[in-house]
């Protein structure tokens, strides 16, 4: 698959996973817990595509996340690009392409994204309206569930998006 097609395909996959996570969580848990099934797409882009292609893809997935979340625009887009960079930087020391490694990365990325969203929102919001740190528990559960679902998502993405050949991990190409 060419980069020109892979990025839109990743967006479509993210949109599908967004819809799926909303349906699954509302039907199975009544919205008590949430899933971030689009985050594995960002992690997959970090691991399997060149940095520019991955960054563009991550930013576009972030735009979708922003639109679906309904919060102030730009927050999740920024965090998606940051997650991409963090994953690329941190994936080197271990086998991130294994199922367990991918699941760990997805769980960590989801947690970092939730943590970053709370941190930035607290930074710009008046103290009376700021989200509390108690939300971190919910973010932790979301990270664990996303990590559990990550290997299946990776399996599907490998078949649909077809990874580009990239020899070296890291931020710089």
């Amino acid at each position, binding site marked *: 698959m060419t980069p020109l097609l892979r990025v839109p395909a990743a967006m479509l996959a993210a949109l599908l996973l967004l*819809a799926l996570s*909303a*349906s699954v969580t509302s*039907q199975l848990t009544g919205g008590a817990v949430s899933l971030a099934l689009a985050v594995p797409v960002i992690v997959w882009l970090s691991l399997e595509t060149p940095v*520019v292609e991955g960054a563009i893809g991550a930013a576009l997935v972030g735009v*979708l996340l*922003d639109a679906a979340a309904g919060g102030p625009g*730009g927050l999740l887009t920024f965090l998606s690009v940051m997650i991409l960079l963090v994953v690329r930087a941190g994936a080197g020391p271990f086998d991130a392409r294994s199922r367990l490694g991918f699941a760990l990365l997805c769980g960590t990325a989801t947690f970092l994204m939730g943590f970053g969203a709370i941190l930035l929102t607290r930074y*710009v919001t008046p103290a009376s309206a700021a989200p509390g740190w108690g939300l971190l528990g919910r973010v932790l559960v979301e990270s664990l569930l996303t990590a559990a679902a990550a290997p299946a998502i990776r399996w599907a993405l490998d078949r649909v998006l077809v990874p580009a050949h990239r020899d070296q991990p890291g931020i710089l190409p």
Partner: protein
Amino acid sequence: MLSLLKRYREVVLVVVLAVIPLGVFLAHARHPSDRTALDRFVLTVTSPVEKAIDWTVSGALSTWQGYVWLRGAQDRAVALSRRVNELRAENAELSQLKAENERLERLLAFARSKPEHRTVGARIIGTRMDPKGLQLVTIDRGADDGVRRMMPVVTADGVLGRVHTLGGRSADVLLISDRNSSIAVRVERSRARANVRGQGAPGPCRLEYALRSDDLIEGDQLVTSGTDGVFPRGLPVGQVTRVKRGGFGLYQAADVLPAVDVNRAEEVAVLVSTEVPGGLPAARAPEP
């Protein structure tokens, strides 16, 4: 400088991809009064794009929910359908209760408007309306409730008939449409006297004994005259629909549309005590 930029163009691009959304977020987050010109510019440029993306994403998510993820939809549809049927039945019952309440309110208002009469409320529990014979209804009040023979039975619209036969807890009412029913009436407009007699079928009655010289026209309202010893004066009986005045004879005749539709009456009031002018008894029962 240019060569440096060229060398690190990919890094620059990634940084730009991170910094622009952060700028948009911060511009959004600032209080409108604290926004700088740059913030306003950023929001002006990005708002239409954000709206378009929001529209697309929410459309896609609703399409997913409405057409793809239909798990449990059939169960929900069945449950909702059952609920709709329950609500329809409940609605029909409430409509009936509302209509009954309105009828009873009118009957009560009628009874209150005539404080000189003491009334007993009753419900029609049976009918015997032979198209060419007896025109009777049975009510759920009888001798035990103070009902006596020949007592007038009315609805809020007017005269329905009079008590014919009695049981302990029920009574038969001879309707205004029965051939044996004859009610003394007055034309409300001209005060002319006459009698209204039933024709043995639900529907128009006949005006009898109206003097040929009396002033009678179609549309005249007829009320009880109080001269027959059964009905007190002033109760609506019906409306003249067609006047038949022959070339000779003492009287003129007319069709009368009864004020009460005997087929639709459900709740009635029995006038158990009336003050008839002239000291006549309220209800004089003939010997059986």
